[in-house]
């Protein structure tokens, strides 16, 4: 039987069609399309008004239009500001230039209005901001951090209710407002969406053929592998309590089979009903010890601070820098060549099915000073609405490598933001470390104990000693 050219062509076309069609069909099924089936509940395609979210409808998971704001409306423009001068108090010296660009644009749009930045270091801000702002009515717009500081400002009557502002309803991702909400009223705009998960050198992982650990056993095994290759597995800045405490979020998120039990344990420790010697807390402490035993941390880790840790990570001496998305800009400033090579992963500390896959936090809460004059309050409100416009939020996000809680912000202009954006599609927990309200009396000594254990201190003795300290602190 002779086969002519036409027949060969026909067969080739048929084979090609048979191979390509299923791929195309499969690809179409995977591509998020409104009304089509999806597989991972909670996964989303971003934070734009046309983004989709995978939600259950009648027992089936289907891609649906996401409602990020209080309604389906599109973001509104900024408010006009009256003439005058106010101060903007915050704790991010590294954002000064970007904020100044945004302020300059605001002042151009509102002639006769001036905003002066007053910046403190984060440590000073935590300790001194309340007393400074409380006695300064010109501090019309300021930021607070989630938890204790926000509560302090609220109790002091410094926060103006901004629940009814249109920009708060249409420009802001509503789920981000929780840290600034008290009894249904919103007292600030948590501007930054942080992801307090470890970042890793994706380039190094690829070159060494390492896989990102997705279970506790894999994590410990990875530490041994990386260490034997001469690499610091986790550049954990244990000498700097603030950043060292970030991994506690990861340990807490899967410390129990459900959120309520974990939160109950935290509340019990925070109020002195439980000490640190319970099996529940000891299991967390033992995991710090296990990480130390597996060689996850550098030598002398308790003397290893947040200057050495990002420097080692930036220099390619460490595989993982376990702080959060806010650490990216530090690393890329130290070594611009790291840009684009950084990715993020949720640190899973269980071998069972994890309850949560990562940590998020909404902080840098912008508020209007309730004690400022009404004109200054209007300027402050207009400035927050200016920051809440997608264009300004994008300027801030790209310039500072921070995700923001504003709708319709395009992160594609910053490769590092884009690279860690996939964590947003995972099941995230609002950073549980901040469930400890008693920072000085409970959280600080508790974190110090875990740092000491991570550095090789005896688990039982450290927990017993720290329990005594906490008990004493709570009695004072």
């Amino acid at each position, binding site marked *: 039987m002779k086969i002519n050219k036409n027949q060969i062509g026909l067969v080739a076309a048929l084979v090609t069609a048979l191979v390509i069609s299923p791929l195309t069909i499969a690809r179409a099924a995977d591509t998020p399309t409104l009304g089509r089936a999806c597989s991972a509940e909670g996964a989303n395609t971003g934070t734009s008004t046309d983004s989709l979210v995978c939600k259950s409808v009648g027992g089936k998971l289907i891609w649906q239009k996401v409602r990020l704001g209080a309604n389906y409306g599109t973001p509104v423009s900024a408010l006009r500001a009256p003439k005058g001068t106010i101060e903007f108090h915050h704790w991010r010296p590294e954002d000064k230039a970007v904020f100044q660009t945004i302020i300059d644009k605001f002042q151009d749009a509102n002639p006769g209005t001036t905003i002066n930045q007053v910046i403190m270091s984060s440590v000073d801000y*935590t*300790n*001194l901001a*309340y*007393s400074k702002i409380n006695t300064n009515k010109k501090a019309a717009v300021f930021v607070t951090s989630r938890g204790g500081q926000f509560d*302090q400002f609220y*109790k*002091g009557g410094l926060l103006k209710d901004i629940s009814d502002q249109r920009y708060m309803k249409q420009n802001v991702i509503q789920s981000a407002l929780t840290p600034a909400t008290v009894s249904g009223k919103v007292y600030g705009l948590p501007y930054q969406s942080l992801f307090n998960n470890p970042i890793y050198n994706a380039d190094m992982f690829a070159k060494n053929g390492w896989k990102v650990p997705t279970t506790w056993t894999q994590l410990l095994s990875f530490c041994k592998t990386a260490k034997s290759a001469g690499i610091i597995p986790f550049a954990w800045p*244990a*000498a700097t*309590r603030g950043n060292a405490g970030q991994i506690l979020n990861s340990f807490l998120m899967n410390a129990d089979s459900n959120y309520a039990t974990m939160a109950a344990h935290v509340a019990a420790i925070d109020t002195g009903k439980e000490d640190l010697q319970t099996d529940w807390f000891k299991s967390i402490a033992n995991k710090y010890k296990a990480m130390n035993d597996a060689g996850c941390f*550098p*030598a*002398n*880790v*308790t*003397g*290893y*601070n947040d200057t*050495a840790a990002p420097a080692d990570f930036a220099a390619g001496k460490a595989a993982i820098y376990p702080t959060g998305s806010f650490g990216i800009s530090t690393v890329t400033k130290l070594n611009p060549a790291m840009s684009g090579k950084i990715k993020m992963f949720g640190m899973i500390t269980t071998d069972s099915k994890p309850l949560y896959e990562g940590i998020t936090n909404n902080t840098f809460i912008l508020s209007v000073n309730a004690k400022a004059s009404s004109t200054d309050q209007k300027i402050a409100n207009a400035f927050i609405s200016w920051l809440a416009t997608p264009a300004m939020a994008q300027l801030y996000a790209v310039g500072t490598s921070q995700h923001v809680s504003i709708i319709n912000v395009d992160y594609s202009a910053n490769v590092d933001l884009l690279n860690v954006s996939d964590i947003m599609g995972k099941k995230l927990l609002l950073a549980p470390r901040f469930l400890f309200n*008693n*920072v*000085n*009396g409970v959280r*600080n*000594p508790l974190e*110090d*104990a875990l*740092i*000491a254990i991570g*550095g090789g201190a005896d688990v039982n003795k*450290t927990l017993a*000693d*720290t329990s*005594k*300290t906490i*008990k*004493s*602190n709570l*009695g*004072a």
Partner: protein
Amino acid sequence: MSLPALLIYSFLYLYPSIQNLLYSFTRWDGVTKPQYIGFRNFTYMLSNDVLFRKILGNNIKFTLFVVIFQTAFSLIFAIFLAKNSKGNIFFRTLFFFPTILSSVSVGLMWTFLYNPNYGFLNAAFKAIGLDNLAVNWLGDSRYSLLAVAITQVWFHTGQMVVIYVAGLQQIPQELYEAAEVDGATRWQQFKSVTWPMALPTTAVVVAYTTIQSFRAFDLIYSMTQGGPLNSSDLLVTNIFNLAFVGYKFGYAAAQTIFLVIMILLITWLQRRTLKIDYGVKS
């Protein structure tokens, strides 16, 4: 003439001090109205507060180390640098140099020196074969207080050298000449002339060093923040944390009162021990 000075003193010192005393009898979070609780802050501090006791112990150890070494070094350096030669003036300036630096800069500089993995100190120890001395200076609770105390001595010795030099230069040269004629050795000259004549200066140096060591807040804050596990916490850092991190302003005020009484008591004891008579007649 003294009325304006008295008014300024009352406004800037007396009023805040009295206010602090009043707060020490209250439970106050710095935001809501203070609640009067009598002596409860003081009784709790002295009988139940485990952390306070630990920190008080730290403070005593820190002060002893600093007072002994800072006074000794400054006296030794001052004896060698007392004469106004060009070389001595140069070295006095050199020793005084750390004093003009900000304490936070000094703290950061020494944090780098103490870095257990990359710091100069451990590298130097390892280079000369003293590997067992290359420890985790600021990250190990056994060494952190010592490490900060060494920094404090380095930071302030130059200042005390200047005070001692001024004191030593007041000693009449004839006394040394008479001692030499009597055949006294350098050590005997020191024992019989320098030391007794330098006692008033020593009292000033010791009192000032004691007060400085109780106020070493910024160095501790920039180097260890009191850690690890409160091993380098001093009363001043604890008071700061109680007030501005824990919002326990009443309890912090009570500890401040305790600190002031303790400094007064120690300074009085030092004067008694050194038998200083400033010649003031009542």
